[in-house]
């Protein structure tokens, strides 16, 4: 029988193949790539229209606006994370891989962040400029988004995995996931707001880093368990 059990691939190979595949799919569907980014841009530009175009007022709300919009954009892009795989059966193949599911889910989450979170981080300074964010807060904004958006992807992944089998998801994903993201939002937005006040930001970064470490180690496990429940 051993003749039928051929050489096994390493977990790393499988991880890399999954990451590559998801990036390939994302790059092929350019619209899916662009839509969250456009959404981010549009939501941010609604604030000056809805609140006020007064620079001082905008400076005050800039940090929160950019963070809330990034949160919503990340939420919008989450839907693609497991949906297509669930519908075409690839998800079953993933679950039946002999590799640890933790790494497979992690690969998918990293791919999702690379195509939806990273562009948001890179676009943020432009929007910060449009909202008159003080110049000394730019690096803080980018750094907190860099630390925070992966957490949004990782937490969001749990919610998507739980709801991927539902016929009509509607707003349930947002209802489940948004409350979980409150700590990231609070710390991230506050760090940016404090940056222009000259407050020392060590604590902020430490907290965000801790959240990132926690979610990197636990969230993929929860997502994997949730996926198993959803394909049941």
């Amino acid at each position, binding site marked *: *029988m051993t*003749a*039928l*059990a*051929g*050489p*096994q*691939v390493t977990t790393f*190979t*499988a991880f*890399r*193949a*999954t990451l*590559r*595949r998801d990036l*390939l*799919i994302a790059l*092929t*569907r350019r619209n899916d790539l662009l839509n969250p980014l456009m959404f981010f841009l549009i939501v941010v530009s609604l604030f000056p229209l809805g609140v006020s175009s007064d620079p001082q007022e905008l400076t005050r709300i800039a940090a929160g606006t950019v963070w809330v919009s990034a949160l919503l954009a990340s939420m919008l892009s989450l839907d693609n994370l497991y949906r*297509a*795989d669930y*519908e*075409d*059966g*690839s998800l*079953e*193949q*993933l*679950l*039946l*891989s*002999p*590799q640890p599911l933790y790494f*497979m889910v992690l690969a998918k989450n990293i791919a999702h962040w690379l195509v939806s979170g990273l562009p948001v981080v890179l676009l943020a300074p432009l929007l910060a400029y449009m909202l008159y964010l003080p110049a000394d807060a730019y690096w803080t904004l980018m750094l907190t988004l860099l630390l925070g958006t992966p957490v949004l992807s990782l937490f969001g992944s749990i919610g998507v995995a739980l709801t991927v089998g539902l016929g009509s998801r509607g707003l349930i994903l947002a209802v489940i996931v948004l409350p979980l993201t409150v700590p990231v939002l609070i710390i991230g937005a506050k760090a940016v707001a404090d940056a222009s006040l000259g407050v020392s930001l060590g604590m902020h970064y430490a907290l965000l880093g801790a959240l990132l470490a926690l979610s990197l180690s636990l969230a993929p496990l929860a997502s994997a368990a949730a996926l*198993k429940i959803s*394909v*049941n």
Partner: protein
Amino acid sequence: MSDSHIHNPDASGAVPLLRAHALFCERDDRVLFSGLDFDVQAGDLMQVQGSNGSGKTTLLRILCGLNGSYEGELYWRGVPIEEDREGFLASLLYLGHRVGVNKILTARENLRWSCALHSPVTDNDIETALARVGLAGYADVICRNMSAGQQQRVSLARLLLNPATLWVLDEPFTTLDVHGVRTLESLLAEHVLAGGAVLVTTHHPLAVPCTLRRLNLDTRGANNS
């Protein structure tokens, strides 16, 4: 949970590849099967039969571990499956209703990924496998531009690429044409003759040059034909 799985009533001493004992599954307050016992030996081609809604797909998904809502015991080579899940999955190949082919990617990209989850393959292997299932020259065609039968064939190429002992195939014949059916039948026969085992659901009468065992979920019991 004694050593009951060692004592095998219908095989002569050999530990069966897969053994199901007292499987019970209930869905929507309806008992699909209860007290279901069967063994799958190396070299078995077992056809799971039953009317619509008799739980064929559910049974296959339970065996693979995709469905956890059952009671009973499952053994892989005499060891409870949950004790060595990874070892079991390494020797399992499952093709479900949904073929597991992403429509945006090409046949090659799809196969490269699904094989990377199990065993390393080269581009050459992929092309040879595709040619065998009748898709020579289709390696770089995007799957959206293929017919349903061709997409099914892409997933069948995995049978040639993943060296798994146990094949679990859920309705693999549905979208295949005559040639496809014949190819798949010969693949199944080759696999069991090489010492593998196959569990398959289909309403299509299998024409294979090897013994066919039947597991009928309507009459509940395994019997050889």
